[in-house]
């Protein structure tokens, strides 16, 4: 059975994933829009940076974040100056790390959806008196709906599944940074296979159901297609 400590980690995991997904949508949408529309020379560089977490070992990303968010790191000095202290081993640090780790899963489906829409519907909207912002909400959002749903689902599930980055940046602090993936690791370390089974099962079923919805109900292309 799931212990109350296990339930706490589940709750914390969903909290991290929800907040991270919300933040990724807020920052990822304009970024994806810019990437889909721009001819700037920066496009290639930004695309590469956004895609880095796809190929880097999570420990590498986690290591750099740990150093940068630490007391002598760039981010750490900034947050200290703001009076927030340093971020490693805090809930906020965990969210920041999650956002950076999962951002390609949000930006890439959105960018693909925006690119597919093309400029024609935007021009039609402009000739029908819609301002650019108006056009975004009345034309782009409805046309890119599958892209938005894919971005939300993949961003959320990917954050739920993270382990390496969490371990590097967040550690293993109960109720603060101890998420499900870490808790499973703890159970296995302690030879508590039955507890590990329960938690792992919950994650497996959850992830499968979500992806099933994504690929059957929403008829989305597999992520490997979207990431191209």
């Amino acid at each position: 059975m799931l212990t109350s400590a296990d339930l706490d980690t589940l709750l914390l995991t969903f909290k991290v994933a929800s907040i991270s997904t919300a933040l990724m949508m807020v920052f990822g949408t304009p970024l994806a829009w810019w990437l889909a529309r721009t001819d700037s020379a920066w496009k290639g560089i930004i695309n590469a940076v956004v895609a880095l977490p796809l190929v880097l070992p999570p420990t590498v990303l986690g290591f750099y974040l740990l150093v940068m968010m630490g007391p002598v790191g760039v981010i750490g000095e900034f947050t200290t100056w703001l009076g927030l202290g340093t971020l490693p081993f805090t809930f906020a640090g965990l969210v920041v790390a999650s956002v950076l780790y999962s951002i390609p899963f949000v930006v890439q489906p959105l960018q693909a959806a925006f690119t597919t829409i093309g400029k024609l519907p935007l021009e039609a909207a402009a000739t029908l008196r819609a301002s650019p912002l108006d056009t975004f909400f009345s034309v782009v959002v409805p046309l890119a709906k599958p892209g938005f749903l894919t971005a939300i689902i993949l961003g959320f599930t990917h954050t739920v599944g993270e382990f390496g980055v969490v371990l590097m940046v967040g550690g293993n602090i109960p109720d603060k940074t101890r998420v499900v993936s870490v808790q499973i690791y703890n159970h296995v370390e302690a030879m508590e296979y039955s507890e590990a089974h329960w938690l792992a099962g919950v994650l497996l079923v959850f992830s499968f159901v979500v992806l099933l919805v994504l690929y059957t109900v929403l008829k989305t292309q597999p992520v490997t297609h979207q990431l191209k």
Partner: protein
Amino acid sequence: MTQLITVNFRLNYAEFQLDVNLQLPGSGVTVLFGHSGSGKTTLLRCIAGLQHAPQGFLEINGNLWQDSGQGLFLPTHKRSLGYVFQEANLFPHLTVAGNLRFGLKRIPKSSNTVDLQHILELLGIDHLLKRKPDCLSGGERQRVAIARALALNPEILLMDEPLASLDFKRKQEILPFLSRLNQELNIPVLYVTHSQQEVAQLADNLVIMADGKTIASGPLSETLSRLDVPLAHDREAASVWPVTVVEHEADYELTRVAFAGGMLSLPLVAAAIGTPLRVQIYARDVSIALEAPTATSILNVLPATITGITDDQGGLTVVRLQVGTQALMSHITRKSALLLNFQIGMAVYVQIKGVSILN
């Protein structure tokens, strides 16, 4: 208000330059004609503000939309225009009604004075309102796009080859609607096309473009018959005359029509006496005689004056004539022109072998 459209644009791309200075009448249909790459679509997009020509001045019947001299560039959504794209470009997530409402919701109430029902009936789409664009034929989609643009009661209607993506049958389905629209609605139209058929059928004024420049601009029949313009030398070159139905000769299955300077016989037309029509006379169907032919099977023989002669390739000579107040073109062989010694100012007779009705 000045009924005038002033269009000055200069645009410099590495592979393409646009340099246009035009004064156009602020009413009627002005067709921008040219081959692909001539800059006609770019010009239309600059007028719509979809493309920003760094140097430009644009005034539509007293409304200033761009004046780069004082740094003025009104964004597209603030211009009172209707735009019909080459592909209908309807919003796929909205029904026909939703597409029509999209613009209507965004114009001030005071300008929402268009009788939309009338437009829908005129275009024959009032039964399609609940359909999504992907359940419409290409012709239906394009007619919805035209209605969507007209519903805004715009100061000007811009149409970018609206029939180019349609097959012949669909074109024939929409062209009559377009000519009727132009007769019934008093909105100036700028219409881009590379089809001479559409020029003949729709244009009141004609602007001919090549390599990003305008090479001729003026009233249709005058511009069509300008010998310095390639159109007059085309094998399909034709004159277009406005005429009025005068009488029907039912026994002969003929209709007599009057033009400014005489009468023509046409195959019987189902149109009431007094109906205005537009007829097309191909230059290759016009022959010239020095004296009035007395015994000929050709019905349409008219006195005319030669106003221009140019030799063309292939042993052909293009002759421009004046019949009454109308200009007429004739393609004859260079040999005939030399043997009969045609000169500018000569009084001659034209024999017209065929006249076709455009609307």
